[in-house]
């Protein structure tokens, strides 16, 4: 994957209607975003459909990227992941918990500030390792596979409220571990 700053420049160019920049962005990010869709949807045809949907959103929303506080890859991943989760849940006839894209409008927290570094990556992984293994797996399942509380409760064979309590405690522990 290319440097973040290049992706950022592509998004700025896409916002001006530059189709070549869109083509380049697709070339260097589609394998990751398709991976996200495949993992959440577990079906190639549906994942391909949602991938297209995500890139159409990226094309239309690129102008909004510049004013949100997310780093470029996080913004792209969020669009793909939310699109995939919405499709997964609409297929399962569970229209609650929509992940309709939230468009950040704040001018604060520039993207560079939030760029991933190996340090923050290690930090998250180290902190996940401080949780009991099944609790860490539940957090990862929610993020990487888009599992809902109901899905997680079923997968870990615990009542829904227990899963909610598990997750919330895990998130508090993670935050305490990672700091602000």
């Amino acid at each position, binding site marked *: 994957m290319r440097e973040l700053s290049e992706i950022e420049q592509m998004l700025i160019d896409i916002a*001006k*209607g530059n*189709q070549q920049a*869109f*083509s380049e962005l*697709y070339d260097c990010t*589609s*394998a990751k975003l*398709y*991976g996200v869709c*495949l993992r959440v949807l577990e079906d190639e045809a549906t994942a*391909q*459909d949602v*991938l*297209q*949907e995500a890139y*159409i959103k990226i094309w*239309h929303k690129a*102008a909004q990227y510049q004013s949100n*506080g*997310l*780093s470029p890859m*996080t913004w792209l*991943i969020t669009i793909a992941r*939310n699109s995939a*989760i*919405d499709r997964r849940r*609409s297929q399962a*006839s569970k*229209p*609650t*918990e*929509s*992940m*309709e894209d*939230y468009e*950040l*409008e*704040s001018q*604060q*927290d520039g993207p560079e500030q*939030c760029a*991933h570094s190996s340090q*923050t*990556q290690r*930090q*998250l*992984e180290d902190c996940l390792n401080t949780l009991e293994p099944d609790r860490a797996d539940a957090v*990862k399942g*929610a*993020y*990487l596979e888009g599992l*809902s509380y109901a899905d997680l409760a079923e997968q870990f064979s615990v009542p829904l409220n227990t899963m909610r309590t598990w*997750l*919330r405690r895990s*998130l*508090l522990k993670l*935050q305490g571990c*990672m700091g*602000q």
Partner: protein
Amino acid sequence: MNSSPEQHTIAAEYTLGLLSSADAQAFEQKMLTDPDAEAAYIYWAEHFANLSDQWDESIPPEHIKNQLENYLKSQSNVTPLTKIDQKEKYRSPLWAMAAAVVLAVGIWFALPTQFEANYQTHLVSETTDLVIDVFVDVDDKQLRIEPLQGSASLEGDYELWVAIGDGAPMSLGVLDINNVQEISLDVSWLAGLSNAHMAISLEPKGGSPTGQPTGPVLAVADTMAL
């Protein structure tokens, strides 16, 4: 960041997609006015994105990019450009040539310049070569159907449907595969398009005889807010 632990947990649950629809919307509203809530969301989104290495990369099939590029070409005259960029492009001979091509295929005049879409549905048939975009301008109560790819069926007519939430499909009419169609809509369901999907079915010539889809469904897609 000065969020309470509870707000931080809600931000994390929102980021993971674990909140109910009502709670997620409430949190989105809060973020619009509360920088701490927004900062908490960014904190979690960035930290969780560090797990992205655990999504295996997979190269999508070639046709996905081709279809996206076709889509972009069809959009080239409605893409929001800054005024400066627009002027520069119109001065360029290359752009003039591109515009001539667009004129030649008849799209340029077919698209009203005042149409401002709030919703889009990108319908791609997996069983035929049909690709259709449907745009809705809620304010002006206009629907625009753009056929991007595909040819008319010999077996019948393609019919477009919309369903709000879990509601029954409502017909939007028989598709004209060769032309952009515009339809005026003065209907209450326009307000429900944030939770809607559209579909194309193959029906007998002239459209479904029952008012509900009777033939095979060729494409289904959620309506997306723009």
